């Protein structure tokens, strides 16, 4: 059986800076894999290597058995199967919400206008922003924009969805709306690779959690293991800092 996503020996350097130092990763069909780790650990770069927004320095990327790193592969065609959601939403500011969701369907998949609009409305309804279809991105809250971005990616019928810290730029009260949509997608069986700082989401929705630090996968396994009973000191330290941000002083004071 082919894996939904498979990364083999992935390396990525920016000049002298080696950001990924050999990553192996598989995501099975229907799985939700969450990537956690401190900033600068290479999580986002890893995700961006999956759809080749960043060209890996070495290593291979397979999506449903097809090697994207092969120079003969039509990368534009391959990317259609990989939906991506960005931290900064990246909605097209000059287009209405509906046009944001239909433009790629029409220009890339060559769907007729009416069909594209129907699919767009179905997906906008699914993420709960159908009533904003006529508005422009600047008129929407961050949470609404991010849900439109999810609808935009879903309208291309992707086999895998990539989420790059989708809630990090949101006001705290809006995070729940976006996580709710992502949880719904997971329940419907969407294959998802999620870079996130939302530990609760990773614990409850993730089938597997991957802890990265300094360009390497330190620990991976089911969330019950990685988040609730981490094996490595570095993982424990990170989780402690993330889960108890107000108790750091106590810890520092304790040894004395």
């Amino acid at each position, binding site marked *: 059986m082919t894996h939904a996503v498979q990364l083999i020996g992935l390396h990525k350097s920016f000049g002298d800076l080696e950001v990924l130092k050999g990553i192996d990763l598989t995501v099975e069909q229907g799985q939700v894999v969450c990537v956690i780790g401190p900033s600068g650990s290479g999580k986002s770069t890893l995700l961006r290597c999956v759809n080749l927004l960043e060209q890996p320095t070495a290593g291979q990327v397979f999506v449903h058995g097809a090697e994207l790193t092969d120079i003969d592969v039509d990368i534009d065609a391959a*990317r259609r199967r*990989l939906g991506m959601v960005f931290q900064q939403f990246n*909605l097209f500011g000059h287009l209405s919400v509906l046009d944001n969701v239909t*433009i*790629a369907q029409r220009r890339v998949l060559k769907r007729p206008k009416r069909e594209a609009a129907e699919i767009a409305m179905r997906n906008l309804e699914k993420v709960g922003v159908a009533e904003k279809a006529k508005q*422009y991105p600047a008129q929407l809250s961050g949470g609404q924009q991010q849900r439109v971005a999810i609808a935009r990616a879903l309208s291309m019928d992707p086999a895998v969805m990539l989420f790059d810290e989708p809630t990090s730029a949101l006001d705290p009260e809006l995070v729940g709306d976006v996580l709710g949509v992502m949880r719904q997608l997971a329940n419907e069986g969407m294959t998802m690779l999620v870079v996130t700082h939302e530990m609760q989401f990773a614990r409850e929705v993730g089938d597997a959690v991957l802890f990265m630090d300094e360009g390497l996968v330190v620990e991976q396994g089911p969330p019950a293991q990685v988040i609730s009973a981490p094996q490595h000191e570095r993982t424990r330290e990170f989780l402690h800092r993330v889960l108890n941000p107000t108790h750091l002083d106590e810890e520092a004071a304790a040894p004395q």
Partner: protein
Amino acid sequence: MTTDTTVAEAGPTPRARLSPRKRKKISLGIQYALFVVVIAALVLAADWQSIQHVFFNVNEAKKAFPEILTIGMRNTVIYTVSGYVLGFFLGLVVALMRLSDVLPYRIIALFYIEIFRGLPAIVVFVIFGFGVPIAFDDFELPYDPYGTVALALGLVSAAYLAETFRAGIQAVPKGQIEAARSLGMSQTRSTVTVVIPQAIRIVVPPLTNELILLFKDSSLVFAIGFTLGSYELYKFGESLSTQTANSTPLILAGAFYLCLTVPLGYLVRKLEARQKRGRV
């Protein structure tokens, strides 16, 4: 040091003979007085009758109509708009070449911009008006002289517009291209569908400024030299002024330029204010 300051602060505030505010008042008073004196001197010294006769002569002005509008204004608008449209598309192409990954494109674009931005427009016009027809024997652009003028103005304005477009394209956030690519759009498709429409929106105020500049630069096409029917505002006013030894037609031509450029300037300020408020 610290003690010194405390002592100084504790004591009564030292009183200058004139406080800064008083000094400012007096200085302003002097400036207003000077202004009044200069105006009064001008009014008294000027020979109002001859000024009116030379510059604002109603009889001479009447002679300019209606040709100043049906020939001068009409040609100025045709030359400028046709040159601008050509320059717009050529400028966009040059800007894309300037930002291309392909080195020869970048070199060509850079040469083009440096040459046509660096040369005085009048040099280009003279070359087009006299050099090209002689060098290429039977060569004639369609709709002469409109074709020649549009090409000359278009080539010059394209250099400026290319730099404006380049700034706009570079101001479109990188995330926009990434989003487009992640949806399966090719490089070209993302540029056409996502980057260029947003880049143009960003540079609408400077683009309008370029149009104003081109309205004025269109006066230089007199250097191409042609017949009365193709005179634009400046040449029309100038030739009539020479004929009649009276500057009124030129003043009139100037006024019509302002009729074109002042509303455009107002539009630019409006657009800039709108952009400042955040585009919706």
